[in-house]
């Protein structure tokens, strides 16, 4: 029987996996015989922060792309207004508008 995971469970699994990789990377860095370089410490120790920053950049980029690519059909409004005017004429002709207007 296939187990269906809830979204938070899937995120938790990814979170635990990434946390394990991070902890292992830190451990590997610290267990080197030579003291780790400052840049390497920054890169590894702050990896979760870099991850959040990258995710934020990706999110902002996605929104920006979506806003730019979202098609704005400015002309449709005018076309609809015209259509509505024609429909109202027809409704008037059928007597529908007069039936409920005060």
């Amino acid at each position, binding site marked *: 029987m296939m187990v269906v995971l809830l979204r938070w469970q899937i995120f938790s699994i990814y979170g635990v996996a990434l946390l394990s990789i991070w902890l292992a990377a830190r451990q590997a860095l610290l267990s080197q015989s030579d003291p780790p370089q400052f840049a390497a410490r920054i890169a590894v120790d702050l990896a979760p922060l870099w991850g959040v920053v990258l995710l934020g950049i990706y999110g902002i980029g*996605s929104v920006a792309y979506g806003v730019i690519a*979202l098609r704005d059909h400015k002309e449709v*409004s005018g076309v609809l207004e015209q259509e*509505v005017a024609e*429909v109202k004429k027809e409704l008037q002709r059928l007597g529908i508008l007069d039936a*409920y207007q005060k």
Partner: protein
Amino acid sequence: MLYSVILPTYNERENLPIIVFMLDQVFAKHNLQYEIVIVDDNSPDGTLQVAQTLQKHYGKEKIAILSRPGKLGLGSAYLEGLQKVSKGQRIIIMDADLSHHPKYIPQMIRIMDASSSNHNKKVDIVSGSRYLLQSPESGVCGWDLKRKITSRGANVLAQFLLNPRGCTDLTGSFRLYERHALEKILPRVQCTGYAFQMEILVLAQREGYCIQDVPIVFIDRMYGESKLGPREIVLYLKGLLHLFFHT
């Protein structure tokens, strides 16, 4: 095959006769049987009277009216319209304020019909999408930059948290459903506001229903005020969190 269009209304006195006329034209042109189920929540502007006038003109077989005592929510309007009144085998949900043009309905039906012969890919829900960015026929009209950013931001967040495969517009409310799909899902929906539409699609996917997008242009309301205030945003985020933890 009878198509039921469920139209919840609140203060749609101006728009209702226009949308009904347009729907009648579209269905007649394509030789389709239809009924329009108007669910009115005691509109103070006399929408019910307009609905009754339309029913006299088009007939009770084509215009059904469910009058409710007050604003009881969109979800319950759909549910009551579906369970108490509608008779169609396929259900169309759309807005009554002309933001959804009926001209897209035949295309939605074509997609559903074309899939009927293919049992592996039978489409149960066709969803009108404003965000099929590759399609020139998808988009919006009348949104300012702030609205676009808010809407796209909400969509990106929902896509990331919920991963609705193949659904580009989770909060859209212009859809064609097979009746059995909507009957199964709608009673389970708990969210309100924009998240309501999102929950329907997410639950449908979890149930194994097949959803396909079709490009539409959403026209911002001609006669009403904007519905996207801080309250709606908070409701949406609460709904999103609810779906994240429960689906």
